[in-house]
């Protein structure tokens, strides 16, 4: 368990990746928070100092990278909070608390399939950076925007990335078949799969993981107010496999018991 800390940090840069007219993708670079350690898959809560009382909550972001220069958060503008975060400039102050939650498993010798949907690619930069044998990593990346919207260069240099761009809803079944095929191939090599992306994408991978019997971890995305386990807004239902028998089959906080869960430990059935 890595103890989180609350820190006030200065924005170093806030770099847009998308083209004009495309949905906004940015890399927010903050000064180094001085953490003793962190795990890829963990996240931070971020709240700019300028928000006053109008926006009540901080916003959760996967940690993309921590370098000696700083903390990098790769994010997409999706609502009121991220629209304002996109306007942060060098020198602005933010409060963050983290690193929060669970991280992805690292099994150096095992073939590991990274399944990223859209902005769900964010935690895999740090995962690839930190993995002791990146030659065992491969990624299937599904996205709607052109790949220029995503900072791909640094990732493509380390690992093998296969792209799939969804242009129309008719492309979805093709992508689903690709995911299934890659997961089956991974299973045949006794591999590990790690997934991050929107909930419909994760729910599909959760179903395939249980059907195929592939060891799979999912990083879930939920609406969160606090990030520390208090608001109970982000719960996920556990399965009967959950290690703590008293909590098996019951809702647990995604922020503290997750965001990274083993597929067999949770129940993502619609309405569960």
């Amino acid at each position, binding site marked *: 368990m890595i*103890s*989180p*800390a*609350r820190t006030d940090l200065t924005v170093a840069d806030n770099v847009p990746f998308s083209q004009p007219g495309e949905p906004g993708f940015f890399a927010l670079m903050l000064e180094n928070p001085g953490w003793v350690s962190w795990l890829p898959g963990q996240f931070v809560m971020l*709240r700019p100092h300028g928000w006053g*009382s*109008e*926006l*009540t*909550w*901080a916003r959760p972001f996967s940690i993309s990278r921590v370098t000696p220069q700083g903390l990098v958060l790769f994010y997409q503008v999706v609502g*009121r909070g991220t629209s304002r975060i996109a306007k942060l400039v060098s020198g602005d102050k933010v*409060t963050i*608390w983290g690193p929060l939650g669970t991280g992805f498993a690292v099994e150096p010798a095992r073939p590991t399939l990274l399944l990223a949907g859209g902005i769900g690619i964010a935690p895999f930069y740090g995962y690839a950076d930190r993995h002791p044998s990146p030659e065992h990593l491969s990624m299937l990346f599904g996205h709607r925007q052109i790949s220029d919207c995503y900072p791909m260069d640094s990732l493509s240099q380390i690992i093998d990335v296969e792209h799939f761009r969804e242009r129309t809803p008719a492309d979805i079944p093709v992508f689903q078949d690709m995911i299934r095929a890659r997961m089956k191939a991974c299973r045949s090599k006794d591999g590990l799969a790690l997934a991050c992306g929107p909930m419909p994408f994760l729910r599909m991978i959760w179903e395939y993981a249980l059907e195929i019997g592939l060891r799979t971890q999912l990083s879930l995305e*939920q*609406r969160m*107010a*606090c*990030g*520390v*386990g*208090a*608001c*109970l*807004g*982000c*719960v996920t239902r556990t399965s009967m496999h959950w290690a703590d028998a*008293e909590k098996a089959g*019951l*809702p647990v906080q995604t922020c*503290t018991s997750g965001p990274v869960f083993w597929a067999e430990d949770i129940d993502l059935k619609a*309405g569960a």
Partner: protein
Amino acid sequence: MDMEVKLHPAGHDGVRPLSLKNPVMTASGTFGCGAEFMPYGNIARLGGIVVKGLSLRAREGNPLPRIAETPSGMLNAVGLQNDGVEAFIRHRLPALPWQDVPVIANIYASCAEDFGELAGILSAEDGVAAVEVNISCPNVREGGVLFGQDPVMAAKVTGAVKRRAGTKPVIVKLSPNVTDITVIARAAEDAGADMLACINTVTGMAVDLERRVPLLANIVGGLSGPAIKPVGLRCVWQVSRAVKIPVIGMGGISSARDVLEYILVGAHAVQVGTASFSDPAATFRIVDELPGLCRRLGIERLDDLRGALKV
């Protein structure tokens, strides 16, 4: 400056006073069971810790989405998810520094008898300094706010809890979702409540116009945060003039200034709620800032400020 507050209603001789280092407590449902916030400050420095609402048996709570952000506030319809009172006593209470900071157990039940049973179980624990009775939750079908909207039911629940609470003070938490909060306040006082807390959340809703759906699965929920501070101040003002027992104020407190405003309108102590979501260190910061603000405003004793509103 001495920030200590002693909550002890005159004439309630069989009840232990609730002694707080300072008037700033945490509000139920916004501070987990306390341990969640230990990385962000020393929780023993707080005035008191009110834990997430406890029921006799574990409750799953409502379906998602349970929370929605609204201007200067938020809506929640969590539905009192909790592990049940036994799990709290076994796993959570021993992890809290209850010898150094009062731990107040907030309780919820769907009938007066169960409220009494919960009070009996919890008041027997050395680590529980007081019991706070939630007759004001807007997000559960049975009981909840229904008890808090009917003076007869409010008195019945208060009486049931008092009979089982022994020497531990009983705080009754009131709902603002009533026509006249003083009617319920007096009913609880007459039934033996040692203190009152107000307010619980204000019922509200938020919708997504494009998708034509409510933002909460429960459709309606409870509004909290700075948006409800004027409602909280109004209720504390009215209630503190209507009863003789101490009143604990809450609703939208996010600064030391807010704390003093609540004391000015009549509160003996306060609880910080949603501000802990905006910043997990909010309550610690407020405790730190309070003495300095009192000095700047020339307040030598909190007793001098309490209810001193010039009208």
